[in-house]
Structure formats: structure tokens, C-alpha cells
């Protein structure tokens, strides 16, 4: 017996006798004898709750929790206490995709609210119910552009995050989409090069703001440029920063995608996070993923339901443009609660505080004389800076002092030798920043 299984000996006897069999294994007559598994799996023996607690407390000690001063797609923002209490409610946590709307209005309503908030932040018209993470949302956007334009080439800036680039490359390879890369100039997508490269074979232009160096790219001319060639504009953006920065909507983008991790989702070693996708209303029928719509029940009560399902894989099968079935629903609830708590002022304040801390750190690092300007470009909470200090000395010093920071860009591209990524969020205090500067400023080689 185990506490997760309720069957007593008596129950088993009754059920077997009802079925007219002697042994539970008689139910498996269809499995050929020579492929049946006998005996025990070679896996650990079961643990009690006390043993489990002990085991994982010991295992947790093999990890080091550090003060985070880098981002590169994952940011250490403040998590309001309320969120975990609400997302742990079993009504949200243990339910499935809302196939029976009469007993899933809780899920459907927060998806509707989530969609409303994502469209508010991106400045676009419609949002789906969420996607796995930023990079896979980017891949879905690439296929959506291919499906809409019937064009097999895709134009991508080299200033996007390497992990986004790698996921795009992988998905494109297997689907038979060819990617052309736009070079960079001073850390920014080279707009002149882009103009000369863009052709009527391209389904879309794909750019990122803020980009892999933390630079706030100016995409204000790209919408018109893309549309003049019958292509789409796709902007990958950290959604939190859109409370401050010019939105994909203002840039006349067709599709905005990116990660929502920056909306207070814990770092959690990379997951679960949440990808978002928002598009212009004209494109809604080509958008992948689930969509929730408002309607009324037969007594006129306002209610919510999954809608436009004819786009999806369970109906269109091999004709579907995406194979995605679910979303990251619980994480969508997470960010809906986060944005409800923060409101328009809180989310802006998070970014303002991060901006201030990041610029203070940047100036202090330059003052040490051991760091120099890599790009003279605007940034928000994340920046790239140059240093000739050997990388291993920096990493060693930071780790010894309990910091994760100065992520070396050469780890993703050897051309980026001597470049380091720093990110500062509202969680970082003056004392932490000053201590980081003093550790790095004290290095000699």
C-alpha cells in the first residue's frame, strides 16, 4: 500500500471478481509475453516524507544562491508575496485546459485578462493564451510569417540573444526555412544593410529590443520598410520594458513575441517561464496557440470560452501551422496577478529603478579605470561593457564574493572577447552595487 493508492485488499478482491479474473495482470493479455516487463526497475527505493525532505535539503546545498548581476534573458526581479499564495490554489494548479467552460470559468477569465494585459503592454490588438518561452514563441512567429506570406526566407538581426537565434535556426532547418542574418553596426542592427538585403523573398524582418547587448534599438522605420516589400515586422521584446519603451504597436510591428519572465517570475534555473505572442487583429486567424473569447451563456451571463479553434492542430491535423496544444497557463496566471498588483505605475517604477541602478553601476565601473565603453548607445536595465581583465579572474572574484555577474559574451561568440553583460533590477541595493564595484575595481593582473 501507498498513500497515493486507495485500493485495499478487499477492494481488489471485489473488483477482480466483478471482472471475472483472478489476477490483476490478467488484464494485460494483449501484451506479448516476451515484451512484458518482470521484476523491478533499477531505480531507488521509495522514501517517506521525512526522508524526502532530508534528501532535497541536502541536494539543495549543492547549489549556490548568488546575488544576481547579469540577465541575458533571465532577470532577478521582485516577486510579490501574494502571487504564490494564489497560484498554489488547487482550483488553478490541478485543473486542465478549459474544455468544459461551465466548470473552468476561473481559468478562462484569467486568460482573457492576461490577453488584455499583453495587448496593453505591446500596443497590439490580440494576444494568445501564452506560449512555452520567448525563443519558442519566436520560432512560432517565424512559421506564422511563412504561413501568411508563403515565403521561405526569413531575415534576422544578428543582435538577438544567442539562445533565441539557436532555437530559430533549429526550427527553421527542419521546416526548410532559410535564415539570412542582418549585420550589426555599433551594437545596433545595421538598418542600411537591412534595406539592401530585404527582398520580396523574405517573409519577415525579425529584430530584438532591448538587444543582446542591452541596447535599446530604434525600430521606428522598420514597419514601413517591411510592409513595402510585403513582409511582416516581428519584434522580440522583454515585455516588462515595454511599459517604458516604444512599443511594437507604435513601431507598426505585425507580431510581438518574447519572454514574460521579467514579470516577477523566479529565475528557477530557466523554467518554467512564459512566452507571449501578440499580433494585429487582421492576423488573428493565422496566430498559433489557444485564444479565449468573451461570450454569454443561455441566461445572458457574461462568460468566457476558448474560441477560433479551427486554427488548431486537433482540428486541422497536418494542415495546422503549429503543433502547439497547450500553453503555460499557470504562468499566464502568474503574470496576470503580477500585473494586477503592479498596475501601470508599479511596472514603470520597476523599470525606472532598474534603469537607475544599471546606470549607476555602469558609471561606477567606468570610474574604476578597469572597464571601458563598448558601445555608446542607450540602455535600460542591462548593458555590455568592455574589460581587459582576464575573464577567469573576474569570474573567480565574483564567485568568491557571492555574485553572479559579468556574464562573458565570449561564451556565446568568440568575436565578443572582453565584453561582459551586466543587469541591475530593483532588487539590487546600493550596498550590493558598491560591493560589486569594489570587488571588480580591486582586481589586478
Amino acid at each position, binding site marked *: 500500500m501507498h498513500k*497515493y493508492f*486507495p485500493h485495499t485488499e478487499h477492494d481488489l478482491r471485489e473488483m477482480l471478481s466483478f*471482472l471475472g479474473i483472478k489476477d490483476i495482470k490478467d488484464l494485460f493479455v494483449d*501484451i*506479448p509475453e516476451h*515484451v512484458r516487463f518482470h521484476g*523491478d*526497475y533499477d531505480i*531507488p527505493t*521509495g522514501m517517506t516524507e521525512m526522508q524526502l525532505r532530508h534528501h532535497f535539503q541536502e*541536494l*539543495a546545498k*549543492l547549489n*549556490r544562491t*548568488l546575488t544576481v548581476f547579469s540577465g541575458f534573458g533571465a532577470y532577478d526581479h521582485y516577486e*510579490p508575496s*501574494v502571487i504564490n499564495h*494564489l497560484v498554489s490554489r*488547487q*482550483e*488553478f494548479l*490541478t*485543473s486542465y485546459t*478549459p*474544455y468544459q467552460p*461551465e*466548470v473552468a470559468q476561473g481559468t478562462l477569465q484569467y486568460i482573457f485578462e492576461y490577453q488584455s494585459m499583453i495587448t496593453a*503592454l505591446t500596443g497590439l490588438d490580440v494576444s494568445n493564451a501564452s506560449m512555452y*518561452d520567448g525563443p*519558442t514563441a519566436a520560432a512560432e512567429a517565424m512559421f506564422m510569417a511563412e504561413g501568411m506570406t508563403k515565403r521561405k526566407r526569413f531575415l534576422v538581426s544578428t543582435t538577438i540573444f544567442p539562445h533565441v537565434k*539557436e*532555437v530559430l535556426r533549429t526550427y527553421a532547418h527542419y521546416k*526548410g526555412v532559410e535564415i539570412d542574418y542582418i549585420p550589426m553596426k555599433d551594437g545596433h542592427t545595421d538598418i542600411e544593410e537591412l534595406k539592401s538585403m530585404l527582398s520580396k523573398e523574405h517573409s519577415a524582418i525579425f529584430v530584438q529590443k532591448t538587444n543582446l547587448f542591452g541596447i*535599446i534599438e530604434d525600430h521606428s522605420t522598420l514597419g514601413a520598410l517591411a510592409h513595402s516589400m510585403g513582409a511582416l515586422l516581428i519584434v522580440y521584446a522583454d515585455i516588462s520594458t515595454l511599459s*517604458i519603451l*516604444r512599443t511594437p504597436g507604435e513601431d507598426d510591428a505585425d507580431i510581438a513575441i518574447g519572454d514574460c519572465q521579467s514579470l516577477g517570475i523566479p529565475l*528557477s*534555473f530557466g*523554467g518554467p517561464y512564459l512566452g507571449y505572442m501578440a499580433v494585429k*487583429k487582421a492576423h488573428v486567424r493565422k496566430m498559433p496557440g489557444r485564444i479565449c*473569447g*468573451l*461570450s454569454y451563456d443561455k441566461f445572458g*451571463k457574461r462568460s468566457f470560452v476558448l*474560441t477560433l479553434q479551427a486554427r488548431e492542430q*486537433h482540428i*486541422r*491535423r*497536418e494542415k495546422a501551422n503549429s*503543433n*502547439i*496544444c497547450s500553453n*503555460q497557463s499557470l504562468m499566464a496566471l502568474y503574470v496576470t496577478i503580477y500585473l*494586477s498588483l503592479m498596475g501601470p505605475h*508599479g*511596472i514603470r517604477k520597476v*523599470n525606472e529603478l532598474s*534603469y537607475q*541602478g544599471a546606470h549607476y553601476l555602469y558609471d561606477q565601473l567606468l570610474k574604476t579605470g578597469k572597464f571601458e565603453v563598448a558601445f555608446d548607445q542607450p540602455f535600460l536595465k542591462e548593458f555590455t561593457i568592455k574589460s581587459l581583465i582576464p575573464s577567469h579572474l573576474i569570474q573567480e572574484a565574483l564567485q568568491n564574493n557571492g555574485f553572479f555577474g559579468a556574464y562573458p559574451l565570449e561564451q556565446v561568440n568568440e568575436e565578443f572577447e572582453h565584453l561582459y553583460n551586466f543587469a541591475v533590477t530593483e532588487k539590487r541595493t*546600493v550596498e550590493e552595487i558598491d560591493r560589486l564595484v569594489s570587488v571588480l575595481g580591486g582586481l589586478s593582473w
Partner: protein
Amino acid sequence: MVNYTKLIFEQSVQGRMGYSLPEAVFPCYSIKQLSSSILRHSSLDLPEVSELDVLRHFTNISNKNHGVETGFYPLGSCTMKYNPKMNEEIASYPAFNQLHPLQSPLQVQGVLKVYDELSRILSEISGLAAYSLNPFAGSQGELTGLMIMKAYHESRGDFKRTKVLVPDSAHGTNPASVAVCGMQVIEIKSTDKGTVDLEDLKNHLSDEIAGMMLTNPNTIGIFEKDICEISKVVHETGGLMYYDGANLNALLGMARPGDMGFDIMHINLHKTFSTPHGGGGPGSGPVGVVEKLVSFLPNPRVKHQDGMYYVEHSKDALGQVSGFFGNFKVWLRAYVYILSLGKEHIKEVGPLATLNANYIKDSIKDDYYLPIEGFCMHECVFDGLIDQSTGVKTLDVAKRLLDFGFHAPTIYFPLLFHQSIMIEPTEVESKQTLDEFIQAMKLVAHEARTNPDVVKNAPHTTPISRIDEVYAAKKMILTYKDYLAECALQK
């Protein structure tokens, strides 16, 4: 408050706040220093509400949901088993929450150890050589598996294998994944027993076949007893066998896909290994392979040597399907679940789940039409009420069950039958719960004969009644802003 109907936006009052943030300490820096041309100028319509407003709102809407702890959730093919609290407790440890995915492997040895050990356990349970835990969900696991299939053939210089065999009973995701992977689907017919038609399969074999996708037990809840012959003929023609792990729960303790000739598979950890479905995610869809395909598994990978774990990015890999290491806190929960059951109890899962399904099947087959006789595996499929004269459809039965406090089974899937009702009880349900459900099913059948309107108009006791889906699709009110515009139009 069953009648709670507000949206969070409708409670907004200018000036209210629900956050707690420090005051600025570096006032000499300001976003206003950025050029206006790169800043947002449009308004930002988010609600302004207090902390208690938020708590009450989400608590009230949560009360309109049916969860596994609310009551029986026999949703076929979804394996809605209990999601143990112990998994939640351990996944909430700060030591797991605060780790950045780009931290040096030396500082995250605990996490990498979980990755490595869970991969090994899944390999053992499925009879395969190695796993990647990176895919985020079952559908992405399928896509990753198909990429492996394609990469394998291409690595041998064989570029003509672009067709994948998929039974007509397969879930829609299978053919969709094939298309997204840039390959073509060849549909294989089912026999009248609901299993793969071996002759039809043989007729489609050629040197253009990359492989075959199969769910076993299949979507009708029946074990493909010709599986060894199927694997053999597909292998002989040079194809690979893909196992869709959607129904793996039935096989725990009874059989391993690797032993049946499968080369690649995914597991839905949110089904078989008890992680919460979360209203539709986050899930986790690890992909496992046989020895000859290990080198194609996606990056990043976790390896170990001399007791130390490290992260590898291999050039031979199929590429990368996730930003980092997939849904870490989901696969962590699955690991806790496996350690809770251990080798002694994991093997009881398949038999108990199968016993429960057969008990339900035999108990209601006098009222519901059972299209395929014999033992089922972990789920059973009916084709509507036996008595069709009442006009009561499967949809009506499903809605009426909601009134009795049960979640409805999966309906209108599999597509092989017109009135499908697919019931999956899982191993966690007691005989008492099953008996109550059986009684409700029989009562609905009785009502269909004696008072069909009560069934056709069901549900009667839920927070809302049947919803106008046509209105939703026609009006496309997908945001609060759309809603305000529609209200203005009506005035």
C-alpha cells in the same frame, strides 16, 4: 460567491496600488534622459487595485474551476491523477527558485544532479539509453523526436526519407508535428478492432519512410498487440519507431517501449509522473532515444564525469529547442514523485489504473455503447448512449455529469467514433469514487429515457450554463478593450 462576475479591470480606481517598492536612491538618473523617440507614448491600461482586491478577485474566480482536489476528473488521455503536495513543497525551496540558468555548472551541481538522475530513471522505466529533459510539453517532445528522426537519416546521407506513418486514430498533434518538422504524413487505417491495420501499413512501406509514430496503448485505450511485427517491418524498411508517451501510465510496471522496438519517445511528465496540469501548462515532455541516436539529443545537455556534472553543447546535436533547460521546476516535481513511490510502488501504477478503467467499462456497458469488446488498458471508450432514440447526445451526457460534481470525460475523441466518450480514472481513485461515478452515468442514461430535457439543458448547477460559442467566434471580443468597444456600440 458563485455569482462573482467582475473583471479585474472593472475594479480599477485611479491611485490604488498593490505593490511594495523602494524609493529611488539614484535620483540623478532618470528614464527622461533617454531620447523621446525610443520611449513609449501611448497610455498603459492596466488595473489599479489594492492587494486585497487582487486576492479576493482571483480567489473568487478560482472557485468557478473544477480541480483534481474538487472531485473526480476522468478526462480521457489526460491522466488527471493527484498532484502530491510534497512535490509542491520541494519545488518551492528558495535554493531552487533563485538559480540563474547561466550560472557556472559548479554552482548548480544539485540541479544538474536531478537532471542526470531523472534522465537515468526515465531511461530505465522506458527501456531506452538516454533522455533530454528540455522539451516543454508533449507536443514539443514529439517535434523534438521527429527532428531526431530526420537528423539521423540526414546524418547517413539519406535525404529521401521524408514521410512519416501515422495511424488514423492518432491524436491531431502527431500529424501537426510531422508537418512542422517539414515532413509528410501517411495515414494508416485502423482495423474494426481499433488497432493498426498491418496490411495497410505494409502497403505503405518504402525507402521514403522516415519512421512511424504510434501511441500504445492507442487512443482507444487498446494495446497494439501486433507491436513487435509493426516495429519489425518498419525497421526492415529502414524507418525508426516513435512512441507517443501520452498513454504511458498504463504500462508502468508492465512493459517498456524500448523492449517493443521503439527508438524514440516522449513522456508527458504532467500525465504519467503527476506534475500539475496548471490549467494547460506548464508541462514537460522529455525525449528519450536508443543508443544509436544519443548524439542527436538537443543542446544544452547535462553530463557527468568523476562525480561532477557539467553542461555540454554538442555540434552533433539536432540543435536547441528551448532557451535553457526546459521547465526545471516541473521535472523536479516528477523526480520527487518517483522517489516517493520508488521501485516498490511505481510498478503498481499501470495495473491499478488499468483495473479502475476496466471496472468502469464493465459497469456501464449496458447503458453506453461499447464499440470494442475485451479488456481495455488505462482508459475505456464508449460511442454514446446505447438508446439513441432519446436524442440525447454525448455532449449532453458530459454536461449533465457536471451537475453531479464530476468533471466530464473527454468527448468526441477519438475521431473513429461519432459519439466518443473517453474515460480515464487513473490509479488514484478509490472503488467508492468509481461506484459513485458509475451510478451517475447510469442515472444520466435513465434520465435520457425518462426526462431527456433535463439532460439536454444541463448543466443546471454550475457557475454558468451552456455558452454561446458562435457569438464568441463571430464577435471576437478577445480583450477588455474589445469589450468596452462592443458595449459602446450596443449603446
